[in-house]
């Protein structure tokens, strides 16, 4: 049978050869540097130890906590908005509003992080565009205006930038649902909110989780946004890593911070893989 010849014989060698280039790329460009940074994090003048980690904790404990909090808040908000957008696209009754939303919501997807950060820098500043518009409209007094260029600015930028990505996945999954369950619930008189929460979300939960995990990992790795928006301390770990290297040429502590970020993302990666295995196959 066809499957037998694919599993054994010469085809197996061919498939190995076909996989080799990408495997080699991963080994060279990811595994080798990863090993290198792990070694450098634990090495200290000739011997092994945790000095770099101790220093990372001593100097940046607040930043580690800050990073975790920012990433969690941002991811949660991204999930909320993505569900709201996906839900309206699926259940919305005004076709014109649905069409406009469908056209609009993807835009931030095509804007790089650094450009979003620059946009927000002028938009969220104390005398920036947002506050000026609010003052012009008489909704805000000049003296009350505050700058959002701190942790709130980071969260706003991340949510604005990442929501379309998750919304795209979620809306796709919602559109693919069997509509009979929705119609049945509607016939029995369920409100749209209830349909969304009790019928739709449970069915697309896997897709939502995957989108959120990818968002979480992406946010952990962004340097430009905290660097451009938040000059204060505490700040995010990526900024500290860049500073350790650029200012002190200190790769040891920078790599220790890197490993701490690996651990923070490693936890969700573990959930991601486990979810896939529970579903009886490779992770989606």
């Amino acid at each position, binding site marked *: 049978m066809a499957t037998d010849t694919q599993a054994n014989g010469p085809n197996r060698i061919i498939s190995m050869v076909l996989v080799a280039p990408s495997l080699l790329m991963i080994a060279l460009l990811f595994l080798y540097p990863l090993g290198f940074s792990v070694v450098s994090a634990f090495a200290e003048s000739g011997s092994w130890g945790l000095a770099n980690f101790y220093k990372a904790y*001593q*100097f*940046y*404990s*607040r*930043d580690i906590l800050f990073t975790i909090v920012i990433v969690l808040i941002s991811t949660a908000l991204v999930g909320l908005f993505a569900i709201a957008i996906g839900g309206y696209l699926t259940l919305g009754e005004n076709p014109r509003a649905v069409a406009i939303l469908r056209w609009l919501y993807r835009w931030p997807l095509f804007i790089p992080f650094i450009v979003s950060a620059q946009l927000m*820098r002028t938009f969220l*500043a*104390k*005398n*920036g565009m947002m506050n000026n518009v609010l003052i012009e409209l008489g909704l805000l007094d000049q003296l009350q205006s505050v*700058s959002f*260029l701190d942790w709130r600015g980071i969260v706003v930028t991340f949510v604005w930038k990442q929501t379309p990505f998750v919304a795209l996945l979620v809306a796709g999954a919602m559109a693919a649902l069997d509509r009979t369950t929705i119609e049945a619930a509607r016939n029995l008189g369920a409100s749209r909110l209830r349909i969304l929460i009790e019928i739709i979300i449970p069915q697309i939960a896997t897709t939502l989780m995957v989108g959120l995990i990818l968002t979480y990992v992406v946010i952990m790795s962004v340097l430009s946004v905290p*660097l*451009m*928006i*938040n*000059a*204060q*301390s*505490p*700040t995010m770990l990526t*900024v*500290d890593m*860049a*500073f350790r*290297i*650029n*200012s*002190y*040429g200190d790769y040891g502590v920078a790599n220790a911070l890197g490993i701490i970020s690996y651990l923070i993302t490693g936890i969700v990666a573990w959930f991601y893989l486990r979810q896939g295995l529970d579903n009886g196959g490779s992770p989606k």
Partner: protein
Amino acid sequence: MKYLTIPLALAGAISLNVQVTAAETILNVASGGSENMVQYVTDYLGPMFEKQNPGVKVRVIGTGPGDAGTQKIIEKLEAQKNAGKETWDIDVAVGNQQKTAELVNMGLLKSYRAKISTGSLATRDTSKMALGVNVDGYVMPMFHSQTAIAYNSDLVATPPGSYDELRAWALKNPKAFGYNGIKNGMSGVSFVVGWMYAYAGDAAKLQNGPYDENTKGNWDGALSNLKAFNENITFTPGNAGTLDMLNRGEIAMGPVWVDMFYSWQADGRIPPNLKLKLISPGMPGQPYYYSIPAKAANSDLAMKFIELATSPKVQAEGIVNRFNWYPGIDAMHVEKSLDPMVWKKLFTDVTPDELAANGKPFPIAPYFSDIKEAYELKVSN
């Protein structure tokens, strides 16, 4: 140029072929500075050099500002050295003090100053020592730059003249002073270094050494005062961020680079009512250096390039007049080639006497790292 030479070469004339090879000599200039330093070479110095040396093309690589920019040059050269390359592909490196000193210590640079005709025009201490490291012979200063406090003269009638007065002013005007911390550009670092010169005791030792690692034990008072000061001010996102916030009226005062300040004012990006004050006991400034990697592929051409760049005429027209930097070579050589009006413009807010009294160098490298680490440990975490 390329489009013209290719068909000509195809015509097969040997003499033309020679011309083609000559046209392909590329002088690689790596600039570890801000955007304006890259523009200086692409828009001004590069075309001038290409005109004087037919067949040479100047290619500039901007590696970004601050320590990070020059760090990239170090990494590139070190990698080429470790790979055992015979020639390296950076011909001229433009770097800041701390990292250029590291390049010298690592043996990655060539001693060239004695071999160029303009070598004797730079006699300031900065052309011999960089943050406590002897760089004599390896560098020519491209320009000198200085930090100072910019303030909105509509809101602040009499600007503070010292760190003490500044602290009192900031206490009375909460959130009206702004700076960018130490992770976001050198103007903030300068403000912190100036603070340490004022309050950490023995500023001369920080600037000249000798290094004693126990010194940092005496800084707790200065640092806890700085932490208290930070409670009452606004943090800005970067060197440009401070100028942006001054422009939008969100802060009334903050540390800036003098050259950036004048350039932005000339472009209309900040209003004319912003003025500068170099407060006592002083704030740091720094030169940027031209250097030549030890195995630069075109080192003779590189020397010619630096010779042009540090000639009095170019220093006057390019560095002072167009880009508002203080000259790299000694001022007396430059002043002669310059319209007195232009010279005066450079010293409108900060007079030459103030500059001499309050323009300080950055600390020697080990103290500099200690100050930044102490700030991270005791002020921000």
